[in-house]
């Protein structure tokens, strides 16, 4: 319950204060968000599977976000930034989708 409140509180804080994103960070924000969504869906599924672990969640969340942004940054330096971000989005998108499917099976038993 408290974690869910924390999530809602984070969204509310972000919407109220609208923290400015530095210009150099802006290209990596969407990728970071996709990585964060992946971690969140993974956490929900793990919770439903009964194997949730907060340390694993926090570390995987932070690492996913950083690594995704880093991969895109490296791609930008190598001139393949848009292709690499497409790749990252595809991989994370498939993971989000199958995690969401697992959550659906838990929720509806179907």
């Amino acid at each position: 319950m408290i974690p869910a409140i924390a999530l809602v509180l984070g969204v509310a804080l972000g919407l109220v204060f609208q923290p400015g994103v530095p210009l150099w960070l802006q290209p990596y924000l969407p990728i970071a968000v996709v990585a964060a969504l992946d971690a969140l869906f993974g956490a929900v599924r793990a919770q439903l599977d009964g194997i949730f672990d907060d340390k694993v969640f926090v570390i995987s969340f932070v690492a996913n976000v950083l690594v995704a942004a880093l991969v895109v940054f490296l791609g930008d330096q190598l001139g393949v930034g848009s292709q690499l971000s497409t790749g990252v989005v595809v991989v994370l998108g498939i993971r989000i989708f199958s995690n969401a499917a697992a959550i659906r099976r838990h929720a509806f038993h179907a």
Partner: protein
Amino acid sequence: MSLLDELTVNALDPGYQQTVDRRVSGAGTADQPGGRRDHPRRYPRRRRGLLVAGLLVAGLLLATAAAQARSRAPASAQVRSSLAADVAARTRDTDALQSQVAQLRAQVAAARARGLAATRSGTAMAEQVAALEEANGGTPLRGPGLRVTLADATLPTPDPLAATKRPSALPGDAGRIADRDVQDVVNALWAAGAEAISVGGQRLTPQTAIRAAGQAILVDFRPLSPPYDVIALGEQSQLGNRFGDSPTARRFRTYAATYGIGFTIRSERALTVPVGAGPPLRAARPPAPAP
């Protein structure tokens, strides 16, 4: 396929399962193999704080990204509209300066006429100056002539050859009037005996360029918008016949039939062409006024 399989099978971070396995083997009291549903439900308070902080950051990230994505679209629209307003303002400025130039020119011409009218050689010179100015666009002119109107194709280009096979290579550009088309028409009009020509209200002088910037046609470095009105003064029937029979006009009739561009020639009794922009001074400067 194995890559996709692996992605869907290992969608969940393997860390969760590993942690459970480790805890189970560490405790050594696994009731169920696989270690499911046997981990302690209560976390130490510090760990719970970690989870709350992580989720807080996650929510913050989501909301920030959403706000960012929402604020960025209007920003680009704002930049665009302010640029458009800038262009409009600059065009207005240029128009005002042009009309000022025309006024000052008229004053200069009047003063010169007064000065030259005093002597006989001066009168001859004044006539020569007037003739030269008419020829190079230094004075507005009116008279009979042709009005040729060019317009981009309005229909989606019906390409008779490629229609059944594949869309043409440049679907949007086939029916578009380019700067070269305007140049061709203007050259054909000069060849047909036009005495003065204006394109889209811009008088052509010996130094006027018809160019393209992106998809806009520039005459004298001022952008035109379609349809393009080309006005040529000259002896009506001769100009009409010669231009109508020119290869350029025939080509444009074909374009009109094939691609649906607008191409009309009208003979009019009273047309006017404005005064053209004078040659710009690049290196010369007026001297400092004498004290």
